[in-house]
């Protein structure tokens, strides 16, 4: 079987869970004997010269030329298309990016997360142009390659998927990693929503990363439940133990939040929980690693609570810094308000760090060896953190069992479920 896959990032350029998921899934499919043609819009400002340099830490030995993977990669065709589209981008984010490019140019990846800009809606047409341009290119590619099925990841690729389907007549599977409701709460951008809806309606099968997301797809987008399937994400086992030398130079235990500091991720609940814990136990440090539009507000709140000396911001972390962060962490917290899946807790568990995650995350549907709380239940969150810090038996149990559990979640298995869906789409 051969798949034409539209994604929006691929190694080495991984900025978060989505790229990791696309990569893992593609690799799993390759192992199942599927051939993959992977198409991505190349992020602006990110030139080829770094390809061999690995970016995101946790998952990341992703040198495509690595011998170990060579035989799989032989079946992979990788195509980049010039474009400004980058992952995780909602409409407003895109506007910021546009503006920033005009103002400053390069280096989006960092700048994008760090700065705030305000805009009018006048760039809307540009975004649509990008999307359509990608779709046009997709249609062209669709006629040039030989494949059995089309697989499109998330909204920016849906139009491309639809175009490819129209051009080739091959079945389309769209893969929903997040919806506009996850990105924007109830302030949904109509344009984006329409694209998503169109994609879901046009698709022969829809894959979602959790039942939580599946429910949204069915209820909010009116998609026939019979064609929506959940395929959970997995995480790469650590094959080569990267030796990251790191020594903590203070005695306190460390509780970590790692992710974008945006509404969706629930940073404020982490801050309030930290406050509760610190009132009871001063020998703890809290770290918020990441950046985003709620960063300043969060900093102010931390100052207001007088936790400044115990609560630290690192900014956006990548590469080896993420590994270090896990190494020094005693507890990892993911308080997301809406998290279609959430791969980061799996990465923490893989590093032996017990996790506290919100019930409003797709990952909570499958993880057993994790503490789960409702994101708004600050008391429960603080209590879980305190429990992990003060009851060593529990910490050890979850650390050991967590590694075991995550190691059993394999991309090959996810790919197998994925393959079944391909077959369903083809047999129809």
């Amino acid at each position, binding site marked *: 079987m051969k798949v034409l896959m539209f994604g929006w990032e691929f190694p080495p350029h991984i900025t978060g869970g989505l790229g990791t998921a696309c990569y893992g899934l593609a690799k799993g499919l390759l192992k199942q004997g599927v051939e993959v043609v992977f198409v991505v819009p190349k992020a602006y400002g990110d030139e080829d010269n770094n390809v061999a340099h690995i970016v995101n830490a946790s998952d990341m030995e992703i040198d495509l030329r690595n011998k170990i993977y060579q035989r799989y990669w032989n079946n992979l065709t990788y195509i980049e298309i010039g474009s400004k589209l980058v992952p995780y981008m909602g409409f407003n984010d895109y506007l910021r990016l546009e503006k920033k490019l005009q103002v400053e140019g390069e280096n989006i990846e960092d700048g994008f997360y760090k700065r705030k800009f305000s805009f009018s809606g006048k760039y809307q047409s540009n975004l649509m142009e990008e999307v359509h341009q990608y779709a046009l290119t997709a249609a062209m590619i669709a006629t040039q390659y030989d494949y059995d099925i089309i697989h499109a990841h998330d909204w920016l690729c849906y139009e491309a998927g639809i175009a490819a389907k129209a051009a080739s007549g091959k079945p389309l599977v769209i893969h929903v990693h997040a919806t506009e409701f996850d990105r924007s709460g109830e302030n949904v951008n109509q344009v984006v929503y329409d694209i998503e809806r169109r994609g879901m309606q046009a698709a022969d099968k829809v894959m979602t990363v959790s039942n939580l997301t599946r429910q949204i797809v069915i209820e909010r987008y009116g998609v026939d439940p019979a064609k929506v399937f959940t395929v959970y994400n997995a995480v790469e086992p650590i094959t080569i133990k990267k030796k990251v030398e790191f020594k903590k130079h203070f005695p306190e235990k460390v509780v970590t939040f790692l992710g974008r500091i945006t509404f969706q991720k629930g940073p404020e609940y982490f801050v309030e929980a930290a406050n509760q814990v610190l009132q009871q136990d001063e020998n703890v440090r809290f770290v918020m690693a990441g950046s985003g539009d709620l960063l300043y507000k969060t900093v102010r709140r931390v100052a207001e609570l007088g936790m400044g000396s115990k609560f630290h911001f690192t900014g956006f972390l990548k590469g080896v810094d993420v590994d270090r962060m896990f190494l020094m962490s005693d507890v990892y917290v993911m308080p997301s308000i809406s998290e279609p899946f959430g791969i980061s807790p799996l990465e923490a568990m893989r590093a032996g760090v017990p996790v506290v995650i919100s019930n409003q995350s797709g990952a909570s549907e499958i993880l057993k060896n994790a503490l*789960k709380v409702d994101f708004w239940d600050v*008391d429960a969150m*603080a209590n879980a953190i305190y*429990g992990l810090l003060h*009851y060593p038996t*529990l910490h050890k*149990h979850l650390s050991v069992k967590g590694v075991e559990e995550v190691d059993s979640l394999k991309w090959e298995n996810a790919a197998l479920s994925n393959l079944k869906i391909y077959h369903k789409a083809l047999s129809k």
Partner: protein
Amino acid sequence: MKAICLYLQIHQPLRLRNYRFFEMGQAHNYYDDYQNQYLINRIAERSYLPMNQLILDLIKKHGKNFNISLSISGVALSQFEWYAPDVLRSFQKLAKTGQVEFLAETDGHTLASLTNIEEFKKQVKLHSDKIESLFGKRPTTFRNTELIYSDAIGQVVHSMGYNIMLTEGARPILGWKSPNYMYCNAKEPKLKVLLRNYQLSDDISFRFSNQSWQGWPLTSEKYVKWILDMGNKEEVVNLFMDYETFGEHQAQETGIFEFFKALPTEVLKRTPYTFATPSTIAQKLKPIAPVYVPYPISWADEERDISAWLGNELQNEAFEKLYELSDKVAACKDPEIQKDWMFLQASDHFYYMCTKWRGSADVHKYFSHYPSPYEAFINYMNILSDFIIRLNQNSLNNNQPNSTQKIMEKEPKKATPEKVTPAKKVAPAKKAAPAKKAAPAKKAAPAKEAAPAKKAPAKKAPAKKAPAKKATPAKKAVPAKKVAPAKKAVPAKKVAPAKKATPAKKATPAKKAMPAKKVAPAKKATVKKAAVKK
């Protein structure tokens, strides 16, 4: 003599509330009063009251040929006294017929027999005292928590004056032998042992309403045929199960009551069996052989060992930390501490911490009100931490006089805590710190505290729909192969008995006085959660 020995276990855990770490040292009310009361009342309505009436009717109808035995844990008794006195009265009514035998067990439904023999004996005596005072007769038959049994435990039980004990007819113990005879303890032949027929017991308690079971639908005719199919050599069929099987685990709609109502008629008409109690059977039947049980067995999970409570490091840690306190508690006279000490030992708390994901996991989940074993562990350890703080403060202050004592605060808990103590034990303690306590405690403090606490849960009630949790699983299902209980074995230290406690004087409070302000916010959260969950 051919007898069916029907014994039903009545127990309801005293569930702990969500106790947050920031409450340690401040709030000492540990129980989810709302939830406990709600469930007791619900089960009373669905199970205890109708079933007691049915038993009474059957006794009237069948006279001397229908006898039954019941065991009620002290934890359940206390809750009946607080929340459902009519249930208690209906049991007393059964006792008056003289055809219901009430068994002895540990007062707190505890695992003390596995670790601290002195404590175990104390609890058993306490329970027998209670049973005698409530039902007029001192028990002579013993059943341990969750039917936990070993040769050594049997010896101890015999030394306390009981002559017959009930336990599980675990396959690893019996091998090819039949559970349908009288056995005796391997080390103390004078202690007779009745072994549960798990097949026939689980057909009712576990499989009755299972439509994919080939025996479904189960009728009294079919059941009696199975009994007859066993052959005519068998002497005693031991049907041991949770009382709540009738009406709660198996809802009324399944026809469980009709089945039970028809069963005695069918049995008495078509078989040589009559329904007898353990003490009667003990007088009539001689043991055919000793049963060797070197390691503790129980009626729980497929393993039939003690791994449901002490099967992972979390459970062991909590259990050890708890029993490390034995000496200190023994030296402490504070009745509140004594009361909590008993309740914190209940096996249920450890059951909730079980991390078996396969096999018996669903059963554990059914009975647990925690989202996961980890929450159960954290919550329990938080409470235990507070208990330790109290205990230490108490021993520090123990040379002061005790008046102000436990007056204390919180305890919004039972609306009627005072009633609680039917048992003689508690009474004297209460006396010690008399008058004064009652007044202020009752009036002032609780009033304000109780209010918010109560209110919040009220909302959560409907939303939450708490499932039946409680008690012991019926689900033991097919025993299945394996697992020699052997390996599970209780850790070494268990054996050591408790040493003597030095008596200490009273404690004093002082510290107690603080308010439970924390409670309010916590509650709020819970309410929301209930809503969302639903």
